[in-house]
């Protein structure tokens, strides 16, 4: 946790970053070469039963992710800008086996698409990776939900979660 920083910028984008002890080229490859991406993308214990990567502007990364408890979900990136080894701009969405764009499984008001900008900064042999998210082509309710949810993620809704933790544990 301590190595990762997440914050809300003034324009309500969601930002997460971490410094990796590896040269920038290597981190870039880990993100852009299918076989390498498959080695780490997704939470602990998740696998990618399907992963198709077409790295070019307009190309897509279409994947199925299987969680340790057997749940499967599809996701899709559509690349917009590829500047090796510095910057990767893509539109991220939930998907289905056919490659369509689908709603967040838990929220109808979550933005259908988010713009994700990943930057790779050289830092004396290390690499600072930063991902910045913003709603893309979103409706007002979607924007609002994104902003509210992310402020909650960042600040635990002003400590409410801590205050309620004991209560949640009991119930």
């Amino acid at each position, binding site marked *: *946790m301590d190595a*990762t920083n*997440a914050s809300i910028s003034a324009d309500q984008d969601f930002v*997460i970053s*971490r410094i*990796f*002890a*590896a040269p920038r080229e*290597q*981190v870039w490859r*880990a993100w852009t070469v299918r076989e*390498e991406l498959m*080695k*780490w*993308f*997704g*939470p*602990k214990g998740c696998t990618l039963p399907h992963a198709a990567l077409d790295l070019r502007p307009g190309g897509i990364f279409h994947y199925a992710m299987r969680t340790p408890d057997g749940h499967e979900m599809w996701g899709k990136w559509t690349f917009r800008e590829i500047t090796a080894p510095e910057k990767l701009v893509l539109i991220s969405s939930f998907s289905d086996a056919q490659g369509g764009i689908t709603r967040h499984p*838990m*929220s*109808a*008001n*979550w933005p259908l698409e988010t713009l994700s900008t990943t930057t790779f900064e050289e830092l004396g042999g290390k690499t600072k*990776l930063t*991902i910045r998210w913003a709603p893309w082509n979103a409706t007002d*309710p979607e924007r*609002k*939900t994104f902003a*509210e*949810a992310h*402020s*909650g*993620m960042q600040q635990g*809704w*002003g400590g*409410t*979660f801590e*205050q*309620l933790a*004991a*209560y*949640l544990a009991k*119930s």
Partner: protein
Amino acid sequence: MPSDHLSATFAALADPTRRAILARLASGETSVTELAAPFEMTTPAITKHLKVLERAGLITRSRQAQWRPCRLEAKPLHEVADFVEQYRQFWEQSFDRLEAYLKTMQDPPTPQKTRSPKQKEKKNGRNKR
């Protein structure tokens, strides 16, 4: 799951007064008058906030007693906590895995002592290319 259930919860939690009300209710059910006391707000103003919380399913108000006590409901809070946690974990854990993967790239396994013959073979193979 109701379609915009989660959004209603997010919106309800976005307001500091409503969060304070929830925090107060965590220690037990109470009346509107009691809830209004620390806020320097009129009862109707508090009632407005309570309606938002009620619509989001975060509280319920008993119809049994005359004073209609408010009570915290845990389910939507659990849902929201799960949502936030899943989102955070996705990238925290992906980053952890990326870190581990990059480490294997940084120091490739060089078990010189234990597998030196194989190591040499590989080296020769590479040189030939």
